[in-house]
């Protein structure tokens, strides 16, 4: 049993090229099967992720294969997390030589709707993980016209992160219950922290959202949505969304000089990770940002390099907007699909059942992507217990569980990547003042709706 291999078991194509070069004449007619995955061995593909992420999955697949009496399984890690991954996967599917299972970091709906992934409904019936054990809001990110094309086995849950020590230094109560409940409160609180030194942002409070993937959460927090699944319509330029973006822009002008360049030059205030382009560390972990929205996966990475300069951080529910009424949360799931052409579909599905119920517990302990299947019994992440104690870790697990229950539907469009790119484009145009809010959203709306209709036209 391989411990961890980055190689595929299928003969390396370079090697097989050399071998078959001997039979050069006949080679062109050689069937693709010469390179394909052998039966009885599971092959799993993973997009990006840390080394730890790769090790966890390699270990899980290996232990499953041993138990199930399958041959050597293998896991291919880090094939890229953007277009290059989907493109590689689609390439392997059209070539009839796909992995047996693949993790996806983009919604399976669009490719599933085009027949690239196997519908799992038949296999789910009577299995360990029937359809009713999945939260409907999450599963909708895999469903199109009544068929389920993948499973959101775990999900990073988005909530607000904040630095308790910074709060206390300002004499602001740092318990979760006192955390702002509305955008207006958040914006007011933010001002307490934000400090400029000329054109350099020294310390920031909270920032209006600039991330396209989470815009669906913010829209839901304002009582709106980006994609209306029931009516198969994009609603990017709805009143709630225009109100939301106007709120952000207004806030941005007032507190952050209305200039994204100034902010990005001052530090990385976007997320909890070091910025690859500028080498700047995450402002939040450097103690230069009171708080931000982030996914729960950061709980696993926060003690990695660069370590935070403070010890006491906490999570709170996302505040809601002027047209919203209650907090909601959102997720970025880790989807799993079985590509059409998988040689071991049933074994692959069995692995998914194992992963959804048992495997995800171990996964969560090391990287806190929250298991989504209702049968899972969670144990707090080990790293968190070590650093913050059992009580805090248990509290956060309960909190994340509760957050997972109020997840808003997202990732559910059949043209997810396209729509997301359009939202990202609108956000950039708005924050760089290349286009006014209404116009930018209307343009994104028109483009996304047109693409949706084109794809649905059959």
């Amino acid at each position, binding site marked *: 049993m391989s411990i*961890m291999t*980055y*190689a*595929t078991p299928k003969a*390396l*194509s*370079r090697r*097989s*090229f*050399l071998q078959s070069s001997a039979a050069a004449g006949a*080679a*062109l007619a050689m*069937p*693709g*099967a010469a*390179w*394909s995955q052998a039966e009885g061995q599971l092959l799993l593909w993973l997009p*990006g992720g840390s*080394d730890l992420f*790769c090790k966890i999955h390699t270990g899980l697949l290996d232990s499953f294969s041993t138990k199930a009496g399958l041959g050597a399984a293998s896991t*291919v*890690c*880090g*094939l*890229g*997390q*953007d277009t*290059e991954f989907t*493109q*590689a*996967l689609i*390439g*392997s599917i*059209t*070539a*009839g*030589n796909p992995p047996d299972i693949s993790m996806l970091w983009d919604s399976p709906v669009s490719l599933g709707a085009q027949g690239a992934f196997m519908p799992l409904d038949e296999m789910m019936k009577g299995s360990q993980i029937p359809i009713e054990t999945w939260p409907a809001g999450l599963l909708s990110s895999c469903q199109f016209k009544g068929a389920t094309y993948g499973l959101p086995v775990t999900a990073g849950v988005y909530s607000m992160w904040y630095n308790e020590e910074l709060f206390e230094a300002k004499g602001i109560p740092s318990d979760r219950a006192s955390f702002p409940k509305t955008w207006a409160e958040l914006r007011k609180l933010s001002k307490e922290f934000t400090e400029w030194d000329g054109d350099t942002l020294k310390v920031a409070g909270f920032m209006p959202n600039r991330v396209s993937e989470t815009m669906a959460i913010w829209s839901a927090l304002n009582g709106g949505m980006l994609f209306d699944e029931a009516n198969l319509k994009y609603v990017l330029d709805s009143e709630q969304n225009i109100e939301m973006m106007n709120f952000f822009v207004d806030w941005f002008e007032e507190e952050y000089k209305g200039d994204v360049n100034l902010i990005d030059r001052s530090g990385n205030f976007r997320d909890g*990770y*070091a*910025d*690859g*382009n500028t*080498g700047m560390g995450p402002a939040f972990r450097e103690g230069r940002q009171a708080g931000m929205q982030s996914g729960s996966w950061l709980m696993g990475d926060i003690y990695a390099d660069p370590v935070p300069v403070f010890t006491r951080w906490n999570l709170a529910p996302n505040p809601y907007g002027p047209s919203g009424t209650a907090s909601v949360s959102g997720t970025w799931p880790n989807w799993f699909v079985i590509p059409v052409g998988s040689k071991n579909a049933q074994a692959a599905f069995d692995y998914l059942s194992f992963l959804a119920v048992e495997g995800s517990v171990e996964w969560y302990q090391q990287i806190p992507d929250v298991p989504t299947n209702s049968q899972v019994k969670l144990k707090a992440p080990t790293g968190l217990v070590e650093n913050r104690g059992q009580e805090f870790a248990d509290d956060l697990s309960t909190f994340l569980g509760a957050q997972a229950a109020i997840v808003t539907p997202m990732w559910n469009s059949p043209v997810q990547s396209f729509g997301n790119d359009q939202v990202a484009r609108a956000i950039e145009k708005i924050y760089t003042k290349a286009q006014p809010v209404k116009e930018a959203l209307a343009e994104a709306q028109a483009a996304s709706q047109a693409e949706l209709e084109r794809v649905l036209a059959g």
Partner: protein
Amino acid sequence: MTTASTRRMPPRKSVQTVIYHAAMLLIAGIFLLPFYWMTISAFKNNAEIFARPVTWFPDPIRWSNIAELFNRDDFPFLIQFGNSVFYAGSVALAVCFSCSLAAYSFGCLRWRWRDLVFGLTVCALLLPGIVTFLPVYLGWSRLGLNGTYWPLITPFLFGDAFFIFMLRQFYMGVPRELLDAARLDGASEFRIWWQIALPQVWTALVIVGLFAVVYTWNEFFSPLIYLQDREDFPLSVGLFTFQANRAREWSISMAGALFAALPMVVLFLLTQRLFRQGLASSSLK
């Protein structure tokens, strides 16, 4: 041709010479800066790369970066290096063989549709690659050969417009009398090519091979699309995916870039004269 002017250089020109060299060295410095920065960054850690004030020489020199580059699980550098060598070598061999046939035909032989076919070849040379890419990609997919080097190498077994064009220039320099004389002696056309024409252009063949190696080594689009496995990537794609996924590890990226560029630089330094000859021939009319 400027030897003459150098020889009769009056004394006041020595000032000009100094200015000339100062300017040239400055320009050369600008051109070399990226190489220099890449090299020193490969021997720093991340904090040192972004340290203020700028350190123009790594201290300490982190040789361990190189060891790490060769031993990383998530960046199989040596395997990808091997892939690149294999890919560039195969394409070079394929091109030398296939193009020398076609170029001989265009450069030395007279036949009916020669000018038409050669005209089409020149058109193909100017045709943007993407225009034919998608159907070819879909074709290889249907054959199930995606994810292998077949789609990347096979086309070169038939020839390549650019290299045919380049080689033809050299074949045109082969005196026709030589070939006609061989014909009179009753040599077969194949033997004439193999024993008379080919030895006349062997330097050109080496040049074409060198150019093919450089182009293939740097090729990015096709391997990006056709290959799916990190263990199969050539360096160009491997470096891209590594940088895209591990953007924070600049020193390893830089070490990777350094070792991706180094073989080409060494190859060039060893064969400069041939490179220049090739450039001259490829552009003359």
